[in-house]
Structures are given as C-alpha cells and as structure tokens.
C-alpha cells in the first residue's frame, strides 16, 4: 500500500513542488491545505500517514496546527517545513511531537530522505517508498 501524505503550505508554489517530488517517488498525496483551518479539517478527513507542515501559516502557526493534529491523531508522522531563521519554532515543534523537520529551500533528495525515514520509524519495514 502506498503511504498517504497530506501537504500543508500556504504557498501554491511550495505545494506544487512537494507534490511533484512525493508523487514521483511513489507516494500518494491525499490533499493540500493552504492554511491551518484547512489542515485540521483535511487531516481528520483524509487520515494520512504523514503530514508535511509549514511553520508559518496565515491563520495560525504550524505549531498550533501540530498540537491540534496530535490531539486527534497521535500516530501520524509530522514533518515540519521551515526556512532558515525559524530554529526556535522548530525546536518547540520537535518537543511538541513533530517527527522531523526540513529546511527550505529543500532538495528532492533531502525531502525524500527525511520523509522516507520518518515513515520507516512508523511501521518498520512495511513501507514501499
């Protein structure tokens, strides 16, 4: 079974890049959310295996979204996406239960490596990506 991924980013450009990278690598992208509200709704509607979560969102911070998702789905893997300069938030996110983080601008290899290992830890060996 393909691993199912939800992308959360307020930039259409970033979402498109991530979607292409992940789809090309054989993952199923189950949704794209552009803000925190959409992210929470789609996370609970699509029940993904992994969420890529942008740190800065228009309505609330990625941190709030992370906490909201964690309450409902303790097992989902969350990879925080941030740019340089958000180290403080990233640290706090890792303490609040984020699985891993990627720093923008990211390369395809880096994204696949981090997403792959985050999922690997989930259910050892059963993923195909």
């Amino acid at each position, binding site marked *: 079974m393909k691993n199912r991924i939800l992308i959360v980013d307020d*930039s*259409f*450009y*970033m979402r*498109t*890049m991530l979607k292409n990278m992940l789809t090309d690598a054989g993952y199923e992208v189950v949704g794209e959310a552009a803000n925190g509200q959409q992210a929470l709704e789609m996370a609970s509607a699509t029940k993904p295996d992994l969420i890529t979560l942008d740190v*800065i969102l228009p309505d609330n911070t990625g941190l709030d979204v992370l906490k909201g998702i964690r309450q409902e789905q303790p097992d989902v893997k969350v990879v925080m996406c941030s*740019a340089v*300069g958000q180290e403080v938030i990233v640290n706090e996110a890792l303490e609040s239960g984020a699985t891993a983080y990627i720093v*923008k601008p990211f390369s395809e290899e880096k994204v696949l490596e981090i997403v792959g290992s985050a999922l690997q830890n989930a259910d050892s060996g059963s993923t195909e990506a």
Partner: protein
Amino acid sequence: MKSREQEYREIFMAEALEYYDAMSRHISELEKDPADEKALNELFRLMHNLKANARAMGHSDIGEVAHRMETIFGLIRSKERAFEGSLVPVLFTGVDTLGSMIRAVGEGEKTANADPLLANLERLVNGEEPVFEEDPDLASDEDATRKLELSDLVYIQIKKLDHLLNLVGELIIDRDRILTLSQEIGNPALQSTAAHLFRIADDLQYSVMDARLVNVGSLFNKFPRVVRDVATAEQKDVELAILGQDIQIDRNILQIITDALLHLVRNAIGHGLETPEVRVKAGKTAEGHLTLSAQTERDDVLIQVIDDGRGIDVESVRKKAVERGLTTAEAARNLDADAVRAFLFEPGFSMAKEVTDISGRGVGLDVVKLAIDSLGGQLRVDSVLGQGTTFSLVLPTSIAVKGALLFEIADRSYAIPLMHTDSVVSLWPDEMHVIGGVLLARVLHENIPVVNLHDLLNSSEDGVLPTANKGSLVGRQDIIIVNYNNRKLGLIVDRFLRQQDIVIKPMSKPLDMIDLFGGVTLLGSGQVCLVLDVPALTRLFLAKRP
C-alpha cells in the same frame, strides 16, 4: 506538454506578483496604523514565503532582500524596532524593489543592483540610521505615476480561456441553428436531442464565463498604494474607502478598465479633492474622502469613483464647450446639466487650469470613455458643485454574450445591445413635432430627437439628412430610444422582433472599418443579423442632422 521547470516558473511568478500586491497593500495599512498586527503578521509571512520560493527558484537576490525585510518585520513584531521614522521609507523602497525585481524576472531581464537597499536594511537590523542617496520625496513622485499591471496568470493562462470562450460562441450559434432546423423538420427524436443540446451548451457557456470571473478586489486592492503616492505628490490628505471587492467580473474587462480607473482616481485626487486648507475653509473635514465601489446592477457591474471634493462647475464647462467649438452658444444655453457634463468626455476637453504632474499626462477622460465604449459599457458623471463628483462605470459582467433587442428594417434583422437602449415606445405621428428640421418626440417629459433609422443608415456619405417630414409617417411608429453619453436618440424601425441573448462576432476585414456596426450575429433561422453600434450611430446623427 509543458516542462516542469516552466510550470514552476509560471507558478512562482504568479504567486510572487500576488505577494507583491499584498505587501504593497499591507505596508500602506501599517503606515496608517503602526499597531495593525494583522498587517504586520501578513508582511512577515509574505516576505517569508517569497524568500523561500525565490531561493528554491535560484533567485538568490530576491531571496536576500526578502530575507532582510522579513528580519526587520520580525524585529518590529517582537517590539525591538518600531514602524516609524527613517525605517518607513526604507521598507517602502524594499517593497518597491521586490516588485521591480519580480517583474524583471518575469520579463527575463537582469534584476537591478539592490546593494544600497541591502546595506540600509543591514543598518536597520544593527540599529543604525539608514543612508539615503537621494531625497526620498523625489522617489515617491516617480511612484505616483507608475503603471499598474494585472497578473497574466490565473494559474491558467487567460488566452486559453479566451480560446475556449470563442469556441463556445461558435457552438452557441450552431446550436441555435440546429434548434431551428429541428423544429422545421419536426422529427421528435431530433427535437428532443436539440433541446438537450440547448441546455448542455447553455451550461457550458456559463461555466466558461464563470471560469473567467475574478474579484474586482484584485484590481481595487492595488489602489491604497496608488492613492497614498498620488496624495503625497499632490499634498492632499485622502482617506480611501473600498467597497464591493468580492463582486465578480470578467478578467479581460477588468484589464481593459485598469488604466481608466487609474486615471479617474488620479483625477479625483488631483482635481476633485481640495487641499486641507481649502476644505477646512469650506466647512469640510481636512481629509478628502475617496470611495471606490463595486456592486451588481441587474446583469451588469457598476463601478463608481466617488469624491467629496469641489465638484464640477457646469457653467464653466458650458462656456468652455462653446469656446472649443463643440457646440453653438445658442444650443449650449438649452442643454441641461447632464448634457453639459457629457462634454467632459469629448476628445481634448480638459478642465484642468494647469497641467499637474499626476493627471496632466497621458490619457484624458475621452480615453476613459473610449475604453468603456469598447466594452459596450456606459460612463456617467454626476456632480454637485462644492460637494463632490461621482463617476459611474456600468460594465457587462462578461464579454461573450450580450442581451440585445432585435428589430427589422426593410425585411432585414438588426440588433442593438440592451446596454444602450433606454426604452421602447410606439407613437402616433401627431405625438411628434418637427423643430428646426428635426423630429422631436416628447417621452416622459423629455424632448428626444427622433430619426428614421432606415434614412440614417442609407444617407449619402457626406450629405445631411433631409428635413424631417411628419407627413411621410403613416400609423403608429415603433421607436427605440437609445442613450449614449447622456444623449438620447429615438430610432424609428419597421418592426420590433424580440429580446434575445446574442453572441457578437467581430466583422472580418475589410468590413471592420465600418464603425456603425459593432459586429454580426447569426440567428437561429440562419439569417445574418448586423449589430448596431450606438456610439457610432449617435455620432453619425449629430454629424448629419439638418
């Protein structure tokens, strides 16, 4: 198929331009209210996104400017810096620089050197005073006259939608033809298929039209910055209100009226609104009020530019119209205020006593008028001396389909767009009078010149129309009252047919030289129907009246 790089480039550009628009808007908001946290957070987020996207695209220079801007907005957010003093012009320059860098990337040009700006941003981060190479006031003057641009991308190129819309137009014409044929043939199966085709094509047409709609806000939101810059250059105090941003309109219509709206706004600030001193003396608030509003009016969109400035002095317009030879002194005396104000839209007519930097250059109101005419829209001006002026633009929501009135002259069908028809009346000859060789009808307390459309269309190239003769009229006359630029004109036709939505196809060369006809449409009967152009028709009548 499009390469992925190209797709990324297009998305990056569309989004970057959107970010730039939003940045311009939010920084003006922040200037007005430095405590506006929402604007500040948005600026921070937009800089952050632009930085990340630009770096991913390899535009490290844009990324660098956005990064330092983000840092400063971050410092303002954490109250380590305040949005005041010398920091403000640097950040405005920063937003402008990002705008021109993004545009340069879009044009495939090299981005300009941003080192002085980067150095100033660095100074601000370190808590030092920025260094200005030139007087910052001079720079803002240049900003005030720049052009606005709408993004060409709605994530799908508009030309693709244009093509789709043209195809739908062709389809509708064939559909109407098939429907008529099926009724003539009388085969029930064919009739029901034709009826189904009718509904599907209708659905398709509205879906395509719908896909082309954008919010008026996408243009309106560019104005806070324009108003700020023009007001600064003109030394006026202006408070802008924007209403009806969510009203939807065809993207190409919005594009066509962009320059017109820009001109009306510059005009309102330059000539309409008074300086604070003058306003206070006149018992008004020191700051002038400018409103941009959009609302739907039946099937049309009404856009208004309203100011509470000095208003238009009808008497001086009347005098000037005579001086310019646009009318005779005698005729001018009898014109009502609406008709006099209509002279403002005549080519070359300008009321500005002195040519100012802002509104004195480029287009005049006549060009605004032409832009609205080309869309089949209406432009009106209302004004109360001393209280203000309102320019109203009535625009179709969509360019594809127009409501039209169909009628016959000499057994041929013609159409007139409903946008320009005021009313339709049937009058007996003795309800009309001949004055000065022109037939006049009294309709709703108004004397309206009436002309036989057949005579007008068939009049010789340079001759005047024959003197009206009531005796030639037999029985009730069907008259269409058209309205163009506050001038009403009655057109006698042989017979009214019906009202119908039509798809207007432009005339092909060399027939497109005939401006009397705005285009043709094909009726369900297969008959070609000429669509009359009311502005050209009105001008022809004025030129040929006896």
